[in-house]
């Protein structure tokens, strides 16, 4: 829809301006072929009004042919202007003949031909002028949209960060950890102390990482290690951890707080539900220009088909989206009795990766 039609007021204003242009057109025609004012106005004003609305069609032509395409767009505009002007002139011929025959208004035949030639010559540049105005309008609209998009993605990223932090500081994890500390205080005070330190360290790291845009894989893995240390106390021998991390990849940068929620999922929906427990496997490898991170966990043989999916996974997906990591991909699925989440990120080094 053309923006002009958004409000009735605008249409009326535009029609008024077209009518004024029609008076000017009448004056021009009077100069070419003298005739009474009434005859000139009766012909020129309706024709000007009609053309005023015809040239609005260039809005769609402009949208279909963005200026950045260069010559093809300009050629398209020229062709459209000739077409529009020809159409207008054709219509004007009909109106001129009717006016002459029905009302005896207007010049004779050679006069009409001169009028039509004048209309065609005026029509082309007027159409092109309207294209220029439309291109300017479109550019304005684009910049507004870009501004809005930027704002939206900023808000989205902030929201994702908050959500990640909230998920990270999962209250159940804290409650269970506090319960473990409570238990250790009696039997193993030294252990209780260690657990307090680990928990404090984990929380501090989480807050620090969450505030950054990208962190070295090394730090993200260190956070995961703290988390696993704490869970180890709860699950004891039932939780084992296997790591297959290529040391050369430790300085790659990744969006923060991606791995830990996946590991938390692996425990909550995996290891915890398997009678004899099992291993959470962490992997980091390189496939061409892609950094591949994997988290794997065992799942109970009789677990329902959906087992393994959790809010954690959804959060990580949203976070990837918010980080605008277009090339990033998260796939997850069950392979026999293991559940595997694979995170593919474009390889990046260094940016924002100053070691804390």
């Amino acid at each position: 829809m053309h923006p002009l039609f958004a409000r009735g007021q605008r249409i009326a204003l535009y029609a008024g301006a077209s009518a004024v242009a029609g008076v000017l057109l009448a004056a021009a025609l009077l100069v070419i072929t003298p005739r009474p004012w009434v005859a000139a106005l009766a012909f020129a004003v309706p024709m000007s009004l009609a053309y005023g609305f015809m040239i609005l069609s260039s809005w769609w032509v402009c949208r279909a042919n963005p200026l950045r395409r260069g010559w093809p767009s300009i050629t398209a505009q020229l062709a459209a202007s000739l077409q529009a002007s020809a159409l207008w002139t054709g219509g004007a011929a009909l109106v001129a003949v009717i006016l002459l025959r029905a009302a005896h208004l207007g010049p004779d035949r050679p006069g009409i031909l001169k009028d039509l030639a004048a209309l065609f010559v005026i029509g082309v540049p007027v159409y092109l002028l309207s294209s220029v105005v439309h291109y300017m309008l479109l550019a304005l609209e684009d910049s507004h949209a870009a501004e809005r998009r930027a704002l939206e993605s900023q808000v989205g990223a902030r929201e994702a960060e908050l959500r990640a932090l909230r998920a990270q500081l999962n209250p159940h994890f804290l409650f269970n950890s506090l319960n473990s500390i409570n238990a250790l205080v009696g039997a193993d005070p030294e252990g209780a102390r260690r657990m307090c330190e680990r928990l404090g360290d984990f929380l501090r790291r989480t807050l620090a990482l969450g505030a950054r845009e990208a962190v070295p894989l090394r730090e993200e893995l260190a956070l995961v290690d703290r988390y696993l240390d704490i869970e180890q106390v709860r699950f004891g021998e039932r939780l084992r951890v296997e790591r297959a991390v290529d040391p050369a990849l430790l300085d790659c940068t990744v969006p923060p707080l991606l791995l830990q929620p996946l590991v938390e999922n692996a425990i909550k929906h995996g290891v915890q539900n398997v009678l004899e427990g099992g291993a959470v496997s962490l992997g980091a490898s390189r496939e061409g220009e892609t950094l591949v991170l994997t988290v794997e966990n065992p799942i109970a043989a009789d677990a329902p088909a959906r087992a393994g999916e959790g809010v954690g996974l959804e959060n990580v997906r949203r976070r990837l989206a918010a980080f605008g990591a277009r090339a990033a991909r998260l796939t997850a699925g069950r392979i026999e009795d293991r559940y595997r989440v694979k995170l593919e990120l474009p390889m990046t080094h260094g940016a924002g990766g100053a070691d804390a």
Partner: protein
Amino acid sequence: MVPGAPMPEALRVMIVDDEVPARALLREYLGAEAGITVIGECANGFEAVKAISEQRPDLVFLDIQMPRLDGFEVLELLDPVPGVIFCTAYDEHALRAFEVHAVDYLLKPFSRERLAEGLARARERLGAAGGSAAPAALAPMALAASARPAGQPLERIAVRDGAQVHVIPVERVDLLEAQDDYVAIHEGGRTHLKHQTLAELAESLDPARFVRVHRSFVVNVERIARIELLAKDSRVAVLSDGRQVPVSRSGHDRLKSVLG
């Protein structure tokens, strides 16, 4: 304890939690309480069902999130049901806990005082009911039906066969058949009996997948190979394994509305 009241018989208590520290804490707290004997500990739901039905404790401290069988599923499989105090880090199960008549609901981490309160409540409840194992007056089927969170279909069915416990994911179930007070669960050539009515079990299943085709049969629609018309208003559903199930007129209407 009420001063001057005669010392009650020691409460026989069992601890069920999959986390070592959580069990250690309960053991420590309970050890300091008078009139409590901890008769056993279990690290998962399977062990719990076996140990509780064999040793008949008066009171069970029961975690909810555990491997294979969660706390509610453990209760479902017990008959008689002992007194239960849930211990969990999750507060969202409290309503369900009340529905299954739990004595108390302790949120981790809890204090000694809070635990003592729960014990006092348990003594009161068990005493009022006249001795140990009294809450067994509750039928386990009633528990099972009410133990589902509202609006969330069952994902697996726990059944007990003597000391053996089976957990059947619902997608593996072919057919449910009413047999007096029991439901026969047919699953890939095996049949399990569950002490529950067909109506109750059917109600907790996903209605888009399980349709009551007959007063005595609920069928997994994914297993239906075809419907055969035997006579006017008399149909049978032929399942993919060849089994034939009678379909009543209203059952056929229900099937049509699900299959579209």
